[in-house]
């Protein structure tokens, strides 16, 4: 089972929930940080990193001697990554999406594949738990291709050591977030019971709904705001899998980099229940699918 821990927005406690869920998971599990812009999961799980690899994107390199400035490549490029100025062709590799269209259309063979560094993929383990993360190079704007590299590494590791996967997803509801939850079996949406929390939750629900995956809510810092988030979940039939109480104690333990599930016995119990509820949601969706088939 692949569990995606997502949130309409950052700062809702997504990473806290991911780390805690990993720490109480009672079958083999790999923790994945797909929030490659701001990976934080390792700060809580403190994995031992055993390997790393640079992730790159294929970008075109120009052989000026072969180019006759026909402009076919700059016409096809949708990202202004290659442009004809008069009869001089300029490439802007930092804007390139690596689609390969220019290489396909160039009639002169003047473009050949080169590489741009996106960031790195790191992997290792934390106790019995497998661990994979990606870290975007500062100044790099495109995270989805790096996320693909992380997922690829995950697939390789998982084929050696099968088990469940818990993904800490990027915040928000734009392309990278959808990209991260796309391959999961269950989506957990972490939110706060405040007006900001409710608004962001609604966006996430709209963004991930079309993927048709079982979705559950985790209400973090319950008791802090109002009851509108819970009411929204009831109205839309989104099960609330856990309500984690707000306490200054929890905020402090988090600020010390502790895994919240290990802070108090009550919280530990709450996360064990979240794990069990998540599994149940998954199994229920599986049997529903089986019934349809």
């Amino acid at each position, binding site marked *: 089972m692949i569990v995606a821990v997502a949130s309409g927005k950052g700062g809702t406690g997504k990473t806290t929930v991911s780390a805690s869920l990993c720490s109480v998971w009672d079958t083999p599990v790999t923790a994945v940080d797909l929030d490659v812009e701001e990976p934080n999961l390792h700060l809580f799980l403190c994995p031992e990193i055993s390997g790393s690899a640079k992730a790159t994107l294929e970008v075109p390199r120009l052989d000026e001697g072969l180019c006759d400035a026909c402009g076919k490549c700059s016409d096809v490029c949708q990202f202004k990554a290659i442009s004809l100025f008069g009869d001089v062709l300029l490439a802007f590799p930092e804007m390139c999406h690596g689609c390969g269209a220019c290489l*396909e259309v160039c009639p002169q063979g003047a473009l050949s594949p080169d590489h741009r560094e996106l960031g790195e993929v790191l992997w290792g383990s934390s106790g019995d738990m497998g661990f994979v993360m990606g870290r975007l190079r500062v100044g790099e704007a*495109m995270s989805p291709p790096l996320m693909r590299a992380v997922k690829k590494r995950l697939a390789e590791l998982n084929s050696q050591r099968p088990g469940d996967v818990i993904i800490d997803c990027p915040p928000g509801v734009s392309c990278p977030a959808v990209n991260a939850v796309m391959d999961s079996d269950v989506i957990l949406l972490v939110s706060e019971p405040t007006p900001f929390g409710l608004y962001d939750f609604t966006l996430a629900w709209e963004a991930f709904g079309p993927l048709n995956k079982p979705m559950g809510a985790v209400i973090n810092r319950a008791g802090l705001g109002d009851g509108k988030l819970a009411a929204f979940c009831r109205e839309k039939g989104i099960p609330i899998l856990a309500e984690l109480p707000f306490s200054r104690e929890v905020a402090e333990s988090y600020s010390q980099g502790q895994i919240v599930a290990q802070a108090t016995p009550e919280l530990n119990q709450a996360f064990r229940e979240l794990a069990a509820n998540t599994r149940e949601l998954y199994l229920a969706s599986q049997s529903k699918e089986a019934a349809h088939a």
Partner: protein
Amino acid sequence: MPEVLVISGKGGTGKTSLTGAFAQLATSKVICDLDVDAPDLHLLLHPEALEEHEFRSGNQAEIDPERCVACGLCAEKCRFDAIREVDGAFAVDPFKCEGCKLCVVLCPEQAVDFPQRYCGDWQISGTRLGPMVHAQLFPGEENSGRLVALLRGRARELADEQGLELILSDGPPGIGCPVISSLSGTDLAVIVTEPTPSGRHDLERVVELCTHFKVPAGVIVNKHDLNAEQTRAISDYCAQQGLEVLALLPYDPAMTEAMVKGLVITEYSDNGLASALKEAWQRIADKAGLGA
């Protein structure tokens, strides 16, 4: 005209609540919400739209099943894995398509259409604290960098038209494309952080980004009293980097209470947090070269 951008490297540090307070404290400004993926500032400012516009950007491939002969070339060549074959029929997965046009130009049957993508809406609004420029991308869309640039351009025009002194923006979270698009040419970045390990980590990355784009920055540590040791470490880090700590703000549930009421904190209460924010704003105004 100075442009002040509030960012945090990630969400949830209280960036939007602080921007709201600054919007109340600044006298002559255009307010801009550059978090176009998950904007929240409108929940405090209750904008009323004066102008509404559609945002279109990029294109998306669509295979016409009538013309497609199922040769499979597009699926083979697509680097984004965006073309699915189901029972011998090919279709584009809109979630994965990056709109690169490769399949459009390669298709021997010209069976791939390439319509523009309607990605979201943006508007100019009136609020009790001044004019506001903001947007909402449809969930799952990208290209927010371009929308951010558009909003910033409109905010500048609006400020010029109305003779306003400042553009105050609530920035997007993260350090990716939309943040890069928000930062270039900004006069001052106010970085909001929290005394947590992730807060510190995100701060360092966003500071690196500001340095990279040569944008002057100052730091606000929100909820500083949750962890004295981390706060000290952050202050030391700032000193090392030559960054001014603009304020250390205490943790105060009044911030959430104000939000629940749809108010900014400086309207809601007059307590320690609000007065600390007033001082912080004074420092920001000085640093940004505002007369106020």
